[in-house]
């Protein structure tokens, strides 16, 4: 062997190289080495084979066992007396004990934790969380009886003692058939469903945590303990690989999001249950990665699709697994949490359907899933009814309900927990009613309402709460009639129950609906009724207070007092922030509203600041695909447009429109029109017109007259650019006709149409009429509170163009000058404002005509700078500006 050692140092450098290579590269490396040094190559080959063998059998893999003192037997830990050591795991050892003070008969297991950060605050949290988990009580959950810290500061958990066998071994030793195994899994799922409705996620499901007793009862161990031990793991998304997570997390059973350090959810448990199922049916892991390194195993979980169970199971089981069970496991094991079963209950339903020989939901989904993957890969535009959207709505409804319930549980009775369960059941039922048929969000909500009417009449309180939640979702979809109807029914129930909290919520919700319908008197009455109801409660839920405050702000805005609206809304914001309710749509929506009020009050900069805050808030809470987020993004785009920052505005609006189209949602009028303007000002009138057309269809579908005026006025502008003057004229006449009907918020679109009329006349070569038309409208635009001041600089620019056409050159120059000043005032940075560029170009033209080369050059330079920064290079104005700037140099 002495010769061998000599060989070791000879081979070592090559070993280093070979170990750094992939398996296939190693082969090549060995072959080329064999040509030069066959002896060393042979020795190296042997070493590499040995290396794989050592890895496979785990040589020195598990740390050495340190001898244990048996003296602990008979010791007291709290009220427990230790009987015997029953095991040792990654976290510490487990002892069997019994309660010695007689208050609790029978055995328990005490788990001591080795590796727990023992700071006082961590221990305190440990105790608190432990007590919380101890409330989880279910026949299939090994209960956490107590959690404490021993005299020496060592944390321990007292668990229900389960005398059982690991589920996989139990199945094999009892030679259970497929159906019996499914039955055991259903027990595990029942335990999970119970925990999920209590907001507890297991996060560490694996065979060693699932035991079956001699009576065949399945018990899930260590519920919530992964979380208990590692409370930071869920926060901030910083995946700090703490010692514990590192040692406790087995990559084979971890869901992709856990490996990525993302928060665990109920879908994480669904995934882990999928792995367990796979192991029970096939005897192997979904991804058998053998002796690969930890990093390789992680990559595999993230990247590779497991084979069908039927492809790897024992031949006898294959036929039974093919089809339904394959599909169910595949759905549970999807990489993306949102593609899995949403809850343990949904997975259990499918397994039950399998047992009852009914069609399984996962299977119907399967074809869609494969198609969806194909489509995603080729980035085709998919405009289909969006199942993803449905899932999102159901998930937000569910999450909001649960968050709310969690708050109740903190200080209210256990009855609330039962309600949470009821709501979870309701959501599941709602989802299952529509099943996997293509469904719109509206149909989903309709199904929910029908369910309520049919099955939940016995619990009016739940019914009212659910009606209010559903009405809010209708409001999100813009279905105001249905929203209104639901609030009315909820309110009727609230009144009959004499429940002040519920009344406050329904009245203040009603107030907002009344405002939407323009019923101001009713709105005022509803708000004060809501306030009165709130006053009757001792400790009103901050969310209800916020509901009412927000309704008051809305009312102030609708009554034309945006300054008061901002003030009240900022109070509402403070309520939310104080209650730490800053992580959902409500907070994000309120920020967006405050932004609107500021804009209405004329403070565009403050408005912009709030919209940005709203965007940040939604990005931080992962709500960046919601309608509310996209609305805020649109508002930011619109603010940028107002600052003249065309490029910034249009890139955002493009994002909004693209997201909406990709998920099959409607592009609403305001968005379509803004996006159309992006094309028009870039010189693409045809494309602009098609977007304005869409805006108009949306406005017609919504039956919203002021939006129709808005879309038509813009259509006219595109038609002028296309020289389709007759159509433009007809369109403007329609707006004028609508304007005479005194439509709320119709002032700006009407002014816009009249301004466009002047532009039409100018384009038709009738500058005198154009001038008269413009002068009729200009005074309204100069009034900063007139509601149409936003159009002033465009009007001044038109005025300059008209004057130039009439050869009134000095007037042209001064109007252009005024337009430029107005645009500079509005801009955050004139150097990147498209409006500044356009006004400067007009000024340059006027000065050129006036034979003022110095002034012209200055304006032309300004134009080139701003236009280049604001527009794409193919913008038609740019060559004009460049020509003027250059002409002077020659």
């Amino acid at each position, binding site marked *: 062997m002495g010769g061998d050692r000599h060989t070791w140092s000879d081979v070592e450098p090559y*070993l280093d190289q070979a170990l750094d290579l992939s398996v296939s590269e190693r082969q090549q490396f060995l072959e080329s080495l064999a040509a030069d040094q066959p002896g060393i190559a042979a020795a190296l080959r042997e070493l590499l084979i040995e290396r794989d063998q050592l890895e496979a*059998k785990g040589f020195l893999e598990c740390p050495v066992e340190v001898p244990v003192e048996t003296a602990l037997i008979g010791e007291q830990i709290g009220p427990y007396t230790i009987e015997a*050591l029953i*095991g040792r795991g990654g976290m510490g050892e487990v002892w069997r004990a019994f309660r010695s003070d007689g208050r609790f008969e029978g055995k328990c297991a005490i788990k001591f934790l080795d590796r727990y950060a023992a700071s006082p605050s961590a221990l305190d949290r440990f105790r608190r969380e432990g007590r919380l988990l101890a409330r989880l009580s279910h026949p299939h959950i090994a209960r956490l009886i107590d959690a404490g810290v021993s005299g020496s500061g060592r944390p321990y958990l007292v668990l229900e003692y389960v005398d059982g066998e690991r589920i996989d071994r139990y199945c094999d030793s009892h030679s259970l058939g497929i159906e019996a195994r499914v039955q055991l899994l259903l027990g595990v799922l029942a335990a999970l469903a119970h925990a999920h409705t209590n907001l507890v996620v297991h996060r560490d499901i694996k065979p060693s945590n699932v035991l079956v007793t001699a009576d065949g009862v399945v018990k899930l161990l260590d519920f919530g303990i992964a979380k208990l031990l590692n409370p930071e793991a869920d926060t901030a998304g910083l995946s700090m690989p703490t010692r514990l997570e*590192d040692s406790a997390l087995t990559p084979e059973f971890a869901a992709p999001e856990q490996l990525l350090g993302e928060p665990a959810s109920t879908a994480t448990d669904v995934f882990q249950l999928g792995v367990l199922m796979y192991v029970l049916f096939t005897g192997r892991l979904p991804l058998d990665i053998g002796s690969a390194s930890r990093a390789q195993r992680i990559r595999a979980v993230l990247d590779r699709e497991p084979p069908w169970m039927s492809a790897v199971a024992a031949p006898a089981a294959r036929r039974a697994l093919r089809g339904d069970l394959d599909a169910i496991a595949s759905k549970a094991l999807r990489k993306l949490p949102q593609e899995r079963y949403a809850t343990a209950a949904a997975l259990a339903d499918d397994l039950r359907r399998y047992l009852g020989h009914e069609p399984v939901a996962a299977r119907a989904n399967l074809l869609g899933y494969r198609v969806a993957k194909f489509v995603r890969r080729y980035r085709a535009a998919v405009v289909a009814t969006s199942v993803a959207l449905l899932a999102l709505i159901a998930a937000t409804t569910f999450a909001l309900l649960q968050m709310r319930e969690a708050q109740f549980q903190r200080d209210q009775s256990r009855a609330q927990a039962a309600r949470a369960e009821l709501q979870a059941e309701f959501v599941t039922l709602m989802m299952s009613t529509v099943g996997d048929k293509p469904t719109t969000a509206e149909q989903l909500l309709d199904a929910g309402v029908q369910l309520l009417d049919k099955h939940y009449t016995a619990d009016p309180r739940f019914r009212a709460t659910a009606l209010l939640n559903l009405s809010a979702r209708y409001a999100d979809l813009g279905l105001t009639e249905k929203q209104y109807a639901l609030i009315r029914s909820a309110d009727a129930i609230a009144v009959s129950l004499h429940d002040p909290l519920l009344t406050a919520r329904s009245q203040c919700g009603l107030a907002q609906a009344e405002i939407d319908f323009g019923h101001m008197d009713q709105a005022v009455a509803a708000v004060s009724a809501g306030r009165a109801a709130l006053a009757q409660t001792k400790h009103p839920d901050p969310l209800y207070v916020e509901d009412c405050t927000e309704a008051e702000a809305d009312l102030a805005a609708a009554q034309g007092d945006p300054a008061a609206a901002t003030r009240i809304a900022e109070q509402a914001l403070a309520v939310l922030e104080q209650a730490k309710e800053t992580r959902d749509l409500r907070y994000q929506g309120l920020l967006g509203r405050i932004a609107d009020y500021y804009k209405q009050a004329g403070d565009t900069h403050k408005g912009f600041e709030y919209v940005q805050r709203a965007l940040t808030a939604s990005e931080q809470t992962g709500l960046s695909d919601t309608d509310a987020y996209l609305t805020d993004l649109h508002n930011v785009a619109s603010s940028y447009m107002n600052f003249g920052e065309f490029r910034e505005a249009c890139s955002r609006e493009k994002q909004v429109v693209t997201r909406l189209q990709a998920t099959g949602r409607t592009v609403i009028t305001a968005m379509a029109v803004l996006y159309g303007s992006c094309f028009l000002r870039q010189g693409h009138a045809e494309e602009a017109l098609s977007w304005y057309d869409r805006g108009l269809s949306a406005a017609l579908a919504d039956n919203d007259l002021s939006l129709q005026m808005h879309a038509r006025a813009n259509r006219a502008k595109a038609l002028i650019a296309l020289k389709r003057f007759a159509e433009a004229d007809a369109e403007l006449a329609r707006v004028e006709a609508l304007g005479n009907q005194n439509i709320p918020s119709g002032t700006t679109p009407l002014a816009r149409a009249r301004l466009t009329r002047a532009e039409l006349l100018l384009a038709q070569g009738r500058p005198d009429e154009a001038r008269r038309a413009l002068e009729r409208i200009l005074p309204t635009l100069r009034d900063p509170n007139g509601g149409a001041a936003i159009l002033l600089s465009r009007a001044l620019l038109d005025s300059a163009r008209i004057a130039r056409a009439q050869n009134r050159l000095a007037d042209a120059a001064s109007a252009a000058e005024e337009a430029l000043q107005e645009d500079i005032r509005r801009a955050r940075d004139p150097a990147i404002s498209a409006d500044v560029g356009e006004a400067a170009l007009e000024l340059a033209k006027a000065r050129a005509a006036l034979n003022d080369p110095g002034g012209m050059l200055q304006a032309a330079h300004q134009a080139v700078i701003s236009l280049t920064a604001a527009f794409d290079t193919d913008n038609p104005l740019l060559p004009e500006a460049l020509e003027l700037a250059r002409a002077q140099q020659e």
Partner: protein
Amino acid sequence: MDQPPEAQQSWALLMTAAESGSLGAKEQLFAALYKELHQLAERQLRRSNAVSISPTTLLHETYLDIAEGQAVFVDRARFMGYAARVMRSLIIDFVRMHRAQKRGAGFHITRLEDDIAAQRADAPLDELQLVRLSEALEELASHSPALAEVVDLKYFCGFSLTEIAGLRGVSERTVQRDWDKARLFLHRELGQ
């Protein structure tokens, strides 16, 4: 804290002296660390009725204990490297002592198999095998101290490869390579 007087001067100095090959400094450092670890382990067992010692916890606590109040910063990675080797001797002594006390008592530590991965693991080594492993490690340390240290940290002290990589400030891949090589070497040595 009743530290040995020689260590009380400065652990950092003692470590530097040991590295520079100063005569006796290595032995001194070893003895001081051994005493320190041993005392802390005893105290932990006595004070808390602890059911076992976690070497990782023990090492961390020892480091915190001695790093506190030192004038010169004690490099953590270097310290862990030294202490891991000391921990190995301590553990082997514990195993010996324990066997002497419990001979015939039939006491075994049962490992609760934790997951499928653990099922692949080798059976735990007995006292004799541990002693032979320790000798093989000394042999390995004589020409590749870094490789031996990975084994001390991982097998004897329970650090994961990821943690070792973090401690040393190198990639996990590098540590994995060292670990592979060290295991090959030891396996061959023990197979003699």
